[in-house]
């Protein structure tokens, strides 16, 4: 498929996906919806830390404010994980069972790849809105309202460190999203639990709310092969919350794990597509 056609298809898929995602309500409510969930999640963990600080445990006072900043950034960027996992897990179900357009997309010239990527990018856009708003509101709440003086200055982020990490991380997440699409195209009803399950695993293992060294020793190796672990590390380094000396190493591992994930994602998707075609699942309506 020519590159121009690929981009065109992906762009149209993105446009349709954005229309579906955003046209259920007015823009203000939509933006509110994008911020409320990630902010609430953040407040849960933030208050845990604040309560820990107030109970005067063995850690120093500076530890908690540093930890809060570390947590806020991790939790904010976890919105990408949540949006992409949930959005891409449900994608096949929505287009196959609800709108019944998957078969028409499939038999049109080209492949399903630009369609999946386009729709995945909608989740990325949703995630971006969530990330930005969560960061802004977090600083406003913790520094502005509650006066915790957390060491987080959004204007001092190193964008040259941030952007490569975000780009690579998103590619890795989209590749994992591909795998979810692959599973849902050949299964029945997994879509409702798959997104939550996978994002839940990343929440536990990805260093979102605690460093991966806090995990049992037996499980830590799993964290070391997940793109999200290096994604969040690199991002925290760009915000100056971790020593920047590790940045290139984390970026390198992020690139490596992303490449592997992309290869796995595309391979799995192709296999699933063939199997779905063989078993007549492309236009199957799953019912409960």
């Amino acid at each position, binding site marked *: 498929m020519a590159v121009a056609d690929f981009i065109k298809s992906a762009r149209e898929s993105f446009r349709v996906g954005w229309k579906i995602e955003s046209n259920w309500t007015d823009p203000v409510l939509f933006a509110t919806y994008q911020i409320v969930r990630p902010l609430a999640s953040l407040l849960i963990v933030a208050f845990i830390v604040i309560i820990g600080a107030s109970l005067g445990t063995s850690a120093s006072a500076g530890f908690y404010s540093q930890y809060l900043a570390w947590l806020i950034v991790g939790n904010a960027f976890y919105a990408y994980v949540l949006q992409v996992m949930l959005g891409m897990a449900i994608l096949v179900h929505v287009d196959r069972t609800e709108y019944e357009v998957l078969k028409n997309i499939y038999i049109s010239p080209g492949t399903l790849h630009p369609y999946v990527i386009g729709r995945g990018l909608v989740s990325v856009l949703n995630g971006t809105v969530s990330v930005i708003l969560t960061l802004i509101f977090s600083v406003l709440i913790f520094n502005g309202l509650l006066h915790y003086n957390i060491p987080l200055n959004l204007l001092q982020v190193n964008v040259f460190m941030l952007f490569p990490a975000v780009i690579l991380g998103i590619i890795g997440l989209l590749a994992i999203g591909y795998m979810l699409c692959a599973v849902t195209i050949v299964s029945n009803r997994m879509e409702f639990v798959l997104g939550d*399950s996978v994002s*839940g695993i990343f929440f536990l293992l990805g260093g*979102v709310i605690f460093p991966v060294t806090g995990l049992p020793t037996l499980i830590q190796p799993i964290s070391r092969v997940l793109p999200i672990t290096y994604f969040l590390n690199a991002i925290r380094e760009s915000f100056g919350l971790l020593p920047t000396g590790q940045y290139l190493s984390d970026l390198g591992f992020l690139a490596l794990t992303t490449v592997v994930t992309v290869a796995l994602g595309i391979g799995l998707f192709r296999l699933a597509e063939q199997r779905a075609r063989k078993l007549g699942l492309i236009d199957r309506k799953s019912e409960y």
Partner: protein
Amino acid sequence: MTTREELVTNLRAAYARMWVRLKGSNREVTGLIVEIGLPILTIGAYVILYRTIGLSIQAGAAVIIGGAMVAFWTNVLWNMSAQWFWERESGNLEMYLVAPVSRMAVLLGMAMGGSLNTAMRAVGIVLLGVFIFQVPFQLHDPFSAAFVFVLTIAALYTLGMMFASLFMLYGREAYHTANLLQEPVYFLSGAYFPAIYTPIVPFALQATASLIPMTIGLDAIRRLAIYGGDITTVWLHILALIACTAILFPLAKRSLNYMESLGKKEGRLTLRWQ
């Protein structure tokens, strides 16, 4: 139809709807694994966070109970409140509306089925949580704990019935609204940290949180199961939960009737894929 016949019909309908919920949910084994496994993942993350910042081991027990209760809230949101939305999308709502049964009877059946299902899962979550994370419990008054638990469930599902009436007319807003009510309620109710009687939490927040039955029930169960309290420590909670149910039930009925009437006037009851 006499009053007795009407009552029998409604009870039969409630039983049948409960039966459908129980049968349907337990036919998908993968669902069972995920409904227990997924909360364990989240609980695990919070327990490790507590340990990372050096909080007491009892905090882990609080998280496990919170995680189990979260399963009920999720069930109330998705399998109660949003249920009319799902029934409408699958073409079943018309069937219910044309049948000579009370909507409350159908919702009661959903509530009973949902709470039974979730209770089984909640027990699994607690047992697994205790086994994996080795957290201590001090349950001296199991009957009070069970009583408070039943009251909490009754209040929660009555709230779910009220939401169900609102969701009757929703299109995709139902899905998004249910999504929206997850994390904020986990936060306000202190599912993963004690939200009330904690000085650090602003009073306004505590007051708001206390309006949610789950907050009150969670706090009461934690006092009984973790801190070894008895019924005298939770009598205020019991009164609050009874009051919740007493207020919410007639509200739910009124709301349901009103929304159904509105839907019939505007022709929105059977509109799909909005």
